[in-house]
């Protein structure tokens, strides 16, 4: 797949669930997926009008829990150069160094995790 028109807001949805034939149900995939604070796309088409757009990460939806049918959502949002974590009515300021907690698990990929699920990148230009 190649991107021809690069959007102002790039939303990336990580496929964190899979239908397991032997279980006859969906399971959550908690595999580690790192996401940078800054992103350029490699897979742009030759005739894309602005193929080198530089994106900043501005928000992440995080799913907490062990399966696709239960759990909890929290979100991390960048606001005025600060990162805020929204957990229902709790809001706290966090440092980007702690995003490591939301990359997922390297071992036991089917266990419970707080893992980044939808990433929102905004073009700098």
């Amino acid at each position, binding site marked *: 797949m190649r991107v021809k028109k690069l959007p102002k807001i790039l939303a990336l949805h990580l496929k964190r669930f899979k239908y397991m034939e032997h279980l006859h149900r969906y399971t*959550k995939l908690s*595999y*580690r997926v790192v996401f940078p604070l800054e992103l350029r796309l490699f897979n742009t088409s030759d005739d894309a009008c602005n193929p080198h757009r530089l994106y900043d990460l501005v928000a992440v939806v995080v799913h907490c829990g062990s*399966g696709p049918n239960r759990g909890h959502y929290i979100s991390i949002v960048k606001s005025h150069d600060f990162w805020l974590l929204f957990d229902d009515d709790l809001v706290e300021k966090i440092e980007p160094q702690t995003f490591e907690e939301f990359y997922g698990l*390297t071992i*036991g*990929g089917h266990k419970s995790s707080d893992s980044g*699920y939808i990433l929102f990148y905004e073009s700098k230009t």
Partner: protein
Amino acid sequence: MPLGRVGAASETLQNGVDSNAAFSLMAASVKPNASHDVKNRFATKEGTYTLMNLSEYCRPNRLPYTVQHPFPVRISFVTLKEKDCSTDRIAFNVGKELYVYVYKGVKKAADLNKHLDKRGYKGTFPTCHDFNLPTRSVEFLELIIGFSAGQIQLIDPIGHELNKLYNEERQVDKASVKCIKWIPGSENLFLAAYDSGNMYVYNKENPASPDSPTFSLLKQGPGFQIFGNKTKTLGNPVCKWTIGKGSINEFAFSPDCKHLAVVSQDGYLRIFDFDGQSLNGIMRSYFGGLLCVCWSPDGKYVVTGGEDDLITVFSFYENRVIARGVGHQSWVGMVRFDPYLTSVSGGGTLDDSDDEGTEQDIRNSTYSERHSTVDMDRPNASYRFGSVGQDTMLLLWDLTEDVLKPIKPRTRSLRTQSSHLGNNVPNGPSKEVNHIRNYITTHNLSSSVEQLLDLDDKSFGSVICPVFDDVPQLEPLVAKKISMERLCGLEFREDCLIVACQEGYISTWARPGKATSPGTVV
């Protein structure tokens, strides 16, 4: 709220990302059931590298360190001269623990019950360390250790007498130490870089200031400031550098010890004249933070790895990106030149003049090599380097003349600037090459660097961050999945290469012809 509901509601987005393997984000996952893919040998043009199972170093109980934490396992080596032979010591951190062993190489099995030192810490993680080379002996070693809460400790892992602490009360910096190294040639000075974007020079003999240190600005330039300690007496830290925006991830001294390459979370590689305190080179990642850096043994090139999943090869003399290495599928944790397979002049390799194989000897030999090879058209120049990353893969790269040949810079304005600023090349090249350098180098170019930096985001497309298709792309010589866990450490030794993974296993791969069969292991 169930996860599946959102997934079903955004089916199109999901499919779009799913089928898109080219997104680097997507390829970073570590699949747990792929153990059959993990290699224990791989072939290169020089022969087959073999995993030496008995030369694996880890915690004495051999259990993996499975508590999740973000601090990479780092390895430090030191070679000691003992009677007629030389032996190695290895230090590594894993989680809240630090181990020091005799490193027995490829020929003898590791004895994990006989550690020289083992330390466990509470509330803080060891993150990086370095052996003091000038003061080393068989009876006494100085290992400097940086910690996640900012403290620094100096220990002797052999005699166990020495125990000094710096920034103990965290009054200097509360951030995590990211990289710590003795300043080459000095017995007393070490440099510690922090997650805060600061780095500090300490003198191991100076007492800690009782209060928070106060600093006065000594010098500043584009993207950096240098401060001195205002304490009248001998204070620690001696001085402070503030560099870029965000964490300093790694730094490396050039082989001639004059220059310091620093990579930061803001995506910049900055090369400083360390004593002259000036900015001499700059490069920008394709995107994201730069995580690791290494100098070529002759000091001409600097390679970096980062969150763009790329290797970037930077020519220090020409001050431009000359190639990008494409092959990693996730962030690149460490990149190192292989001095034993790098030939900087007429076919000679760096270890030809070096039978001892100790760190200082290599440093000296590369230094002399460098002086003997100032010509621009070395037909056989070839550099080997390796990289490891979160994709659990080891990649080996060859940098050969097809990308090394200098081209005239694309940016005419930069060339014009450099022609009158760029004469001050370190080590004074001979006159006949000076006129070539005049239009291809941009040395001591703080002012032109400043202009490049002022462009900030517009630096994209310039020599410091070229458009992707505008520089040659390197392909790895080999790319092998060699671990179940993400890789964070890499070291080349004379007869082997050593790789560290996040769970705390340090594996030894014998070079071609250096593997001993299991029966002969003592």
